[in-house]
């Protein structure tokens, strides 16, 4: 099936080569960072995690969102999703690979990264993050290719794949819960020290991931002969709407606890992000943009007439994706470090090199996604998009 990625139209190849060019430039930037050290980034003694780890956090959520197709289809027989579970699984794979790459470029000594496997530390949540992310990536590769090749041969997927599919459902929840636990267990970081962290992570994941899936499905319908199905897209849009509402509700809960309790420690980071503190307010416009975009999108998505209009839907999903990226991929991580444990405000902004390396890793993800989708769509075009009866 891999040969399906080696033949394509001119636009396919232009896109692939554009991505390769971005990857190439970013790779050179990484070599420079590898030689000079992470001092070339905007990271500092006070804000020791920034753009790279924030991308990891956001992308784990995107990867987990494959479960939003798998769960309804395999557990509740939502037939519309049958044609496109592969799109969810093949989105999870590049998302996980990007997560791994973001960790590697963030490490001070990447040549020692296998120490996590050589010296397993069960009390360290990062160890479990490593384990669970590897397992979930393996699961999705296995499930994706097995189901796809069965589809190609017009037969049911083999019975042995079913336990893996069922287990991928709690695994999807677990990868994002474990990632949330990285933050929720830090005693000195009050923005993150909330029981609701994992719930917030999951709700924003289940809004951002399916929003991206909708956009990708619409692109596939336009660019190929495979139609993911109007009904599937509509059902996904409903999931996005509910998840986004829940996510904004959870955010408001944070504000309530912080401000009604009156405890300054709980307010400082949230205040820095949304209102600025002591003149430090670099992230304020970003956070408000995120909130306004999200609430605006909710208002649009509430009306079925808007969801049914696929142009409006596409634009709204893009806005939702960006809004949630700002919330998780920028605000949450950086905000946790400001103010620092000594109540000092030291801000962070990424350097050009850091941004270029980030873009390059996104390009790697986009490339792998393109290749995998090309294969999946190629198979579906061959079989006419019909699944064997099961």
């Amino acid at each position, binding site marked *: 099936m891999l040969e399906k990625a080696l033949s394509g139209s001119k636009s396919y190849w232009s896109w692939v080569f554009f991505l390769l060019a971005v990857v190439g430039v970013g790779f050179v930037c990484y070599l420079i960072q590898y030689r000079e050290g992470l001092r070339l980034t905007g990271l500092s003694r006070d804000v020791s995690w920034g753009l790279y780890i924030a991308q990891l956090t956001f992308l784990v959520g995107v990867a987990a969102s494959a479960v939003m197709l798998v769960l309804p289809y395999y557990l509740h027989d939502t037939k519309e999703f049958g044609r496109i579970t592969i799109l969810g699984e093949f989105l999870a794979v590049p998302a996980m690979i990007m997560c791994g790459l973001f960790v590697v470029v963030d490490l001070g000594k990447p040549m*020692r990264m296998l120490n996590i496997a050589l010296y397993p530390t069960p009390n360290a949540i990062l160890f479990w993050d490593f384990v669970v992310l590897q397992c979930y990536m393996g699961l999705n590769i296995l499930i994706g290719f097995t189901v796809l090749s069965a589809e190609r041969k017009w037969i049911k997927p083999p019975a042995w794949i079913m336990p893996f599919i069922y287990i991928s459902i709690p695994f999807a929840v677990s990868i994002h819960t474990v990632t949330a636990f990285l933050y929720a267990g830090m005693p000195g970081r009050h923005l993150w020290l909330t029981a609701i962290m994992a719930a917030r992570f999951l709700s924003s994941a289940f809004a951002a991931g399916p929003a991206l899936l909708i956009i990708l499905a619409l692109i596939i319908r336009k660019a190929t002969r495979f139609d993911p199905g109007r009904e599937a897209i509509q059902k996904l849009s409903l999931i996005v709407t509910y998840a986004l509402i829940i996510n904004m509700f959870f955010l408001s809960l944070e504000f309530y606890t912080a401000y009604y309790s009156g405890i300054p420690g709980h307010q400082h980071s949230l205040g820095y992000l949304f209102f600025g503190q002591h003149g430090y307010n670099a992230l304020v416009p970003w956070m408000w943009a995120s909130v306004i975009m999200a609430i605006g999108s909710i208002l649009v998505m509430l009306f079925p007439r808007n969801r049914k209009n696929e142009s409006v839907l596409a634009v709204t999903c893009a806005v939702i994706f960006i809004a949630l990226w700002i919330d998780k991929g920028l605000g949450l991580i950086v905000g946790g470090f400001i103010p620092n444990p000594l109540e000092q405000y030291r801000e962070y902004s990424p350097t050009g090199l850091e941004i270029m390396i980030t873009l390059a890793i996104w390009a790697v993800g986009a490339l792998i996604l393109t290749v995998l989708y090309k294969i999946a769509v190629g198979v579906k075009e061959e079989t006419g998009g019909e699944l064997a009866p099961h």
Partner: protein
Amino acid sequence: MGADRRKFLKLAGLGVLGLGAARPAQAGIFPYPNFPKFPWERERAKTNDSALTAKRWAMVVDTTKRPGRDAWAEAIAACNKIHNVPQVGNVKEEVKWIWTEPFANALPDHEQAYLPEGVESREFPVLCNHCDNPPCVRVCPTKATFKRASDGIVLMDFHRCIGCRFCMAACPYGSRSFNWGDPRRYLDMDHINREYPTRAKGVVEKCNFCAERLARGQLPACVEACQDGALIFGDLEDPSSEVRKILKTRYTIRRKPSLGTGPGVYYII
């Protein structure tokens, strides 16, 4: 033909995996636990006869003895010198093992509007608290930072650290620094302490309670530099130690005690 090729590739892949796993198992590459591997090796390693030992090392900082500006400069300089701490010179990438902060930053939980004038203007030395329940140790994925069982000092294994900086996020006191670049560019290599290594780019470092000096029977450099006894160092679990004697007679506070970390640095205000 297609099915045979697939089978061959699957078998070949499994074979490579199997070979790959056999060698590490053979060579004993998984070195956990690290030392000593064989019973007869245990006699090979011993402590110095002059080593200072304790069940749990702790420190008391008598800030009343140092009311002035730059009051702790010699203690800080002593630490920086003997540990080859790089002087980076900017807030973004600085590396500091012990430094001073005003009261509101060092002890924010005790901050209030009406402090005695002396306390308001005093400088408070802050360093790693060598907690009893250290969150940094809890989160380290490789046990590169660990609490030594013999004496409770929280140490760094610079050989194992992967530079993930999770410990820096976990520390509620901001005690840890990262080497964002090669620290040797910020050291005068002709005038370093040659008996102690430097660190390399990409690892986290912090105060180590001068474990290497304790092993040779010397007190920590900062404690020794304060000739008036402003820093008191001793075994928290030995009722007759200096530290316990002082804790019995003077009231002390610790940084952020409600977090349950059990810090081992006590401040007399």
